[in-house]
């Protein structure tokens, strides 16, 4: 059984359909990525799964349970965490406070302290800046914090919306290393990326979205080898 299963999901914003019936699955312990151009509906998919946008049609199953009609709070409780696009850390709170907000729904105080240390082990940079306001961190550090904050909810599935957006290439490399580390610790990652090259190299399975539909899917290597994908997303022109 797959961890997350989305069937025929339709979402419309005031009559315009952003998602026109997409279906996909995320297997336990894998990194799955959705790639596609601007406006393909990638972010909408994530926002719908986390309950921020109500779907018009279709169902979402998490561990076999229907979570389509749950509110965001309940969905976070079932074990889905989101790293929103553009990082969105709480700029006027300290790094530590940001992490504690991540654990807002949890009541297990000791485990929370353990997890804070765990996040600090993952990102030693954050530990150094524990008392600094999140708004004063660099872009890469803010991204680490956004990931750390999501890890604090103890998720089974962590969804990331364009984590490499607006970051320097070296930092992007770091971010993908982090994603790999998360996978090694047993987490499942659903990743949205415009940086198709990096995402396809990192993922176990990938779906390609175009204007509200899933057009292709396959393992990362399969898609990297596909000519149409190379032309459309990897910037390689085919020799005729």
């Amino acid at each position, binding site marked *: 059984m797959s961890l997350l299963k989305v069937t025929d999901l339709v979402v419309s914003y005031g009559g315009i359909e952003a998602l026109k019936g997409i279906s996909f699955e995320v297997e336990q312990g894998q990194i799955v990525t959705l790639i596609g151009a601007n406006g393909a509906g990638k972010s909408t998919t994530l926002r719908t799964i986390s309950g921020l946008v109500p779907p018009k049609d279709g169902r979402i199953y998490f561990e076999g349970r229907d979570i389509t009609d749950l509110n965001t709070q309940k969905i*976070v*409780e079932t074990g889905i965490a989101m790293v929103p696009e553009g990082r969105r850390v709480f700029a*006027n709170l300290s790094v530590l*406070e940001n992490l504690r907000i991540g654990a807002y729904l949890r009541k297990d105080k000791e485990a929370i302290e353990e997890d804070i240390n765990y996040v600090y082990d993952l990102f030693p940079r954050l530990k150094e800046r524990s008392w600094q306001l999140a708004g004063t961190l660099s872009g890469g550090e803010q991204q680490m914090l956004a990931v750390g904050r999501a890890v604090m909810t103890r998720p089974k599935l962590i969804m990331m919306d364009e984590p490499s957006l607006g970051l320097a290439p070296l930092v992007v490399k770091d971010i993908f290393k982090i994603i790999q580390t998360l996978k090694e610790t047993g987490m499942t990652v659903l990743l949205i990326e415009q940086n198709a090259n990096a995402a396809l190299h990192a993922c176990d399975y990938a779906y390609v979205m175009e204007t509200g539909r899933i057009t292709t899917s396959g393992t990362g290597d399969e898609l990297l080898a596909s000519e149409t994908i190379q032309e459309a997303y990897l910037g390689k022109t085919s020799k005729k």
Partner: protein
Amino acid sequence: MKKGNKRLIISLVIVALLYAGGCLIEQTAGTKSMVVTVLQKGAVYALIAVSMNLLNGFTGLFSLGQAGFMLVGAYSYAILTIPMAKRAAVYQYYNGGWVQFTVGFLPALLVAGVIAALFAALIGMPVLRLKGDYLAIATLGFAEIIRAIVQWDTIGPLTNGSNLLKTYPTLKNIMPGNTVLFTFIVVGVCIGLILLLINSTYGRAFKAIRDDEVAAEAMGINLFHHKQMAFVISSFFAGIGGALLAMYQGSLQANSFKSSMTYEILLIVVIGGMGSVSGSILASFLFIACSEWWLRFLDAETVLGNFKVPLLAPGFRMVVFSVVIMVVVLFFRKGIMGDRELWELGSRRAAKGGRK
């Protein structure tokens, strides 16, 4: 942790000294002196400003309904505490009124807060779905509606219409000679409770909502629930503040709770610093001292020898006062304290925006 304890003890000692100082000033200067007036009214405004800061500075909800909730609190307090013997005289146009019982001033203070909180819970349901400027306009509107309803003749037997409410227990006759101490204690307890709230998990959630609503929601924070909570708690303390203001004034009329009163408090919050409790307290005392005391001489026509000083006439005080405020806002963009607290200033890291 030990360092935190040490800080707490120092803070408590300083607070105790301030209380003793206030008490001493009243003993030496007398209850009717200007200093005592400033201390009383400043403390009352401090509570109201901190309650408004909880909403505007910490939760990021730009609400302008404070005067309305103060009015509810003040009226609840006065209506409940007017002595039975004097009800006939106060409600002379309404056959002695509907309320035919009296409660003590302490329970009445609490009830004043609770009733203001109930009003907030009702108003919050529709209003808190709005954001930013729209929320400000809606809350301002509701405050004006409350003021109009209180003066409505049909419920006159309850509120005494647009006539004065008086003869309820005031600061001067609850603890004669120790009015400052009484005000300080009530205000101190309330602000203490607000501080505990701000430093709790809920307070952290409020600040998260202020910084980024979408991210806060994605972390599982129920936006409406928390906004409603901040709104109700803020109004509870605004209600108690209103009741204290009624005690300070000695008589009560709905017409004095205009929106300009909300603006005064907003001004205090902004000058003190959005998101700083100690800033609000400091700014309240400065504001009241300036408007009631230090600038009074500007209102009096002054003649030096044969020379009549120009411009000094009743009302000129407010002109100078406005200029002072403009200067303060220009030079302290984020208010006197920014979003820091007085007790954080000592630590070196505080200056850089963090805490250790």
